[in-house]
């Protein structure tokens, strides 16, 4: 019965999401405000970094992937899927670029992604997170750029004429479609130029995400299933350039079992360029526990970042925390680190 209910619940959740989902997109290059909201809220809510993420692009692939995630005993752990099926159905399939630009609804749906993830819990239970991410505004979306569009179209026109007519048109047509075997350099150049131009422009970005987590019942019946947590993120930014911007973010999470709510708004002002920047950050955390006791803390920080090489930065950070979050007290900290694309190496750290 438990298994059936679990499978049914997964199925209902999946089906209930489908009408909502008509869109998707990757974040823009250097998309500060958008990137503050996790790309895959479900993975973030479970605090997992799956090595294999399924990304279906058709209904058929989606159905296959989901069916593979449900075993005889219910949902399997270590499953991760992210999809954006606006283009699966008529809403996106028949949308041209100019229609996308003219129609907010098409843009709204095209910027929605869904992520699902599972992980194992004690007693053979499985935690399931369902994430929804919507980019409300993104002035840096490359689809807005008529310069990029023209550049790419001209590059494609030249490339397709270079290909010339096939010797056997019937065979070529029967094959239908293929990915070009090599990158078209002229198109890649268009992208590079667009990214460079984007860093000089200004605009708004805003995104929200939501990810509830639920847990199946333990196989031995010792732990009932139910909701485990709710998580939400939001961010809005305005960039005078993509390197000089003001950013407001907020995260709320509720631990259902502990009856604990955490709310963390923060603000950041970043001034600088792609080689060096100076940021001021202020964050506030408010926690309400099961006994309705409130604790809070304010964190202030200043960060200087200097580019040393293409993807290597030197970060110098100094900050302080005031409040009742950690018993013991207010503290100050300074740190120096080398930061790479996805990692960092601490060089110096001091806390008091």
């Amino acid at each position, binding site marked *: 019965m438990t298994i059936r209910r679990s499978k049914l619940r997964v199925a209902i959740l999946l089906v209930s999401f489908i009408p909502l989902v008509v869109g998707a997109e990757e974040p823009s290059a250097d998309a500060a405000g958008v990137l503050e909201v996790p790309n895959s809220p479900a993975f973030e809510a479970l605090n997992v970094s799956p090595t294999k993420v399924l990304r279906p692009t058709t209904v058929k692939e989606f159905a296959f992937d989901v069916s593979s995630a449900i075993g005889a005993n219910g949902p399997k752990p270590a499953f991760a899927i992210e999809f954006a099926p606006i283009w699966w159905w008529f809403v996106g399939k*028949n*949308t041209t670029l100019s229609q996308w630009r003219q129609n907010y609804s098409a843009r709204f749906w095209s910027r929605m992604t869904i992520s699902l993830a599972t992980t194992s819990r004690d007693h053979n239970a499985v935690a399931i997170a369902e994430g929804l991410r919507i980019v409300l505004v993104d002035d840096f979306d490359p689809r807005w750029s008529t310069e990029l569009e023209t550049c790419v*179209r001209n590059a*494609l026109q030249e490339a397709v004429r270079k290909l010339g*007519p096939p010797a056997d*048109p019937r065979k070529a047509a029967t094959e*239908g*479609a293929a990915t070009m075997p090599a990158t078209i350099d002229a198109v890649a150049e268009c992208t590079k130029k667009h990214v460079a131009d984007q860093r000089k422009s200004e605009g708004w970005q805003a995104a929200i995400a939501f990810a509830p987590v639920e847990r199946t019942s333990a196989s031995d019946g010792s732990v009932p299933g139910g909701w485990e947590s709710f998580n939400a993120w939001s961010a809005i930014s305005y960039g005078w350039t993509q390197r000089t911007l003001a950013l407001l973010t907020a995260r709320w999470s509720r631990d259902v079992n502990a009856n604990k709510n955490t709310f963390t708004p923060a603000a950041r002002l970043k001034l600088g360029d792609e080689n060096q920047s100076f940021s001021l950050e202020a964050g506030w955390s408010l926690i309400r526990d099961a006994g309705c006791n409130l604790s809070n803390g304010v964190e202030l920080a200043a960060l200087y970042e200097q580019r040393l090489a293409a993807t290597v930065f030197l970060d110098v950070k100094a900050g302080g925390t005031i409040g009742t979050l950690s018993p013991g007290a207010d503290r100050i900290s300074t740190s120096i680190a080398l930061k790479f694309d996805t990692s960092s190496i601490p060089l110096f750290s001091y806390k008091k």
Partner: protein
Amino acid sequence: MPLAEITIGKGRPITFTITYLNAGVGAAACYLYNSQGLSPKEIVGTVTNNGDSQVFDVQEADLTGRLLFIRALVTPLKVPDVGRAQTLVKEPGGSGKNQLNDAELVTDMGKPADLRFAYQFK
């Protein structure tokens, strides 16, 4: 399989339109072959104002048995995504129905989808 047969009436010209969907960008080249599938002749298309589609006018006296081949390179501006194009042959003066066809492929910017269509005139 984007290979379609079309019955041509007496109307001229045949208007052939390719539209780029999924909010992507594309470009196409169009060739008319003889009845043996040889001697391709390029047909020059015009780009419509909004850039979403290209129109080709096929000004030929006799299309019987000939083959129209079109190749489109399509890329999304937001990646990765699906490159999709749709072709429509309109025959203004003829009795045959308009022929609609489409093709799509997951692709990436810089490596566009190479979509091919052909229309065999009866």
